[in-house]
């Protein structure tokens, strides 16, 4: 089994009309044994930026802590909040520093920039980014998630429709993957704030 599939994960981030949604499952497993149904994989960096980390759980937590540290330092030095684009570049550089002994995480970044325009990026474990304008996925069941998102996604969805779309995509995708699922959480970010909802799904 690949090291990136050791703990199991599934996450999606989607862009809507001046809003974004980011969703992830909550399972933590040790190969096929499930250990926790409350494992956090989505981390809020500031009001308008979220990062999702899929991969080896120890690296998920280490990278999350390192990113929080870097963000705090940036805010102290620059006296302003980090935009998602800067955050994504920092994360990419952080991962590439470890080019020959990488962190086993494949992150996705979602946020609203200064003019409330959605920003999405997804990276591999050594920091190679891509910046699609529709959706990004990561985890152990990316094929399932791509199939769902590619079919269900439409541009210009409002916050509620975006929530429905991303939830259906995530639930259908993880139900066909043994290593992900066991609960799901969705954050919808608009210029007015963040709405967090937990999804009721199959606990198997």
């Amino acid at each position, binding site marked *: 089994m690949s090291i990136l599939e050791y703990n199991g994960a599934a996450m999606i981030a989607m862009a809507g009309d001046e809003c974004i949604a980011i969703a992830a499952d909550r399972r933590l497993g040790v190969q096929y044994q499930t250990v926790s149904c409350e494992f956090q994989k989505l981390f809020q960096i500031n009001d308008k930026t979220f990062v999702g980390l899929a991969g080896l759980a120890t690296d998920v937590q280490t990278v999350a802590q390192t990113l929080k540290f870097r963000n705090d330092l940036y805010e102290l030095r620059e006296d302003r909040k980090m935009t998602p684009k800067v955050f994504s570049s920092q994360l990419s550089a952080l991962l590439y520093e470890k080019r020959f002994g990488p962190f086993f995480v494949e992150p996705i970044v979602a946020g609203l920039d200064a003019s409330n325009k959605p920003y999405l990026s997804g990276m591999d474990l050594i920091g190679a980014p891509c910046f699609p304008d529709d959706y990004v996925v990561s985890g152990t*069941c990316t*094929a*399932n*998630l*791509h*199939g*769902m998102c*590619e*079919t269900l996604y439409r541009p210009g969805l409002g916050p509620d429709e975006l929530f429905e779309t991303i939830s*259906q995509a995530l*639930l*259908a*995708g993880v*139900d*066909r993957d043994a290593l992900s699922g066991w609960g799901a959480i969705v954050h919808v970010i608009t210029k007015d704030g963040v709405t967090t909802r937990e999804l009721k*799904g*199959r606990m198997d």
Partner: protein
Amino acid sequence: HQHPTIVIADNHQSMSYLQIQRSLQNTNGATALPIHNTESNGLNGSNKHTISVNYDKSTDEQTLSDDNHIIDHGVTQNPYERGFSPYEFNGGTVLAISGKDYAVVAADTRLSSGYEILSRNVTKLHQLTNTTVLASAGCKTDVDQLRSVLDIRMQMYEHDNRKNMSTPSVAQMLGNTLYYKRFFPYYAFNVLGGVDHEGKGAVYSYDAIGSFERTPFSAAGSGQSFLIPLMDNVISHKNRCDEENRVDLQSDEVVEIVKDAFVTAGERDIYTGDAVQIMVITKDGVTEHVYRLKAD
């Protein structure tokens, strides 16, 4: 002093590469590791070209004198194995969905090998009877052979029993045929669609060695992961709270869903594209549609 990089043989005879190496090592006093030459352990048992780590120069002279210029590359003296796999994946995706009184079977028409496209117009669908269609992805030659075997066995059934095979019987026969080759399987991922003897839609999914089950829908091939969760959501209505919206789907609605599904698979799977062939099977027969997909 001899120049360290040019070695001239004393008697002006040509020296083999390994002899030159050895001389260099002697000259430069190198205590390098021996060049373990796998090529040299011939069937005749001599280690002609192995350079021994041997500080006693006298034993070196023995191997120097047997000057054998043949470079073996390990292919003339020993038996060797090249990597040969009898299987190859020719790509493609197949999908079948059952309805109240119809079944829809669809497949893309691309044939590929590695990163190359061999053909944009090869069918993966095979109509076995008036009410059954087999769709297979995998290795084309195995798929073709499997179809021939099924056709022959079906003819025998029709001669023996004086009736056409029903879909559940075809399903069982396909399962058995695959299991005959349990220890050298057909590299064929099959999906069978048709109407059963009551006129209801039937879809059966298979693995490569004949395990099968009747299911509401099935997908196989390189794009199956993209399609199956979508079918779960749209056909089986899983994870949905709007039961009041759930109606029995008509065959034309399902054809639209299938078209969307193949557009998705064509976008995200490199082996799927060019066109999708959709067959709708009812108790009255089979109708076919072909739709273009992206050719990239």
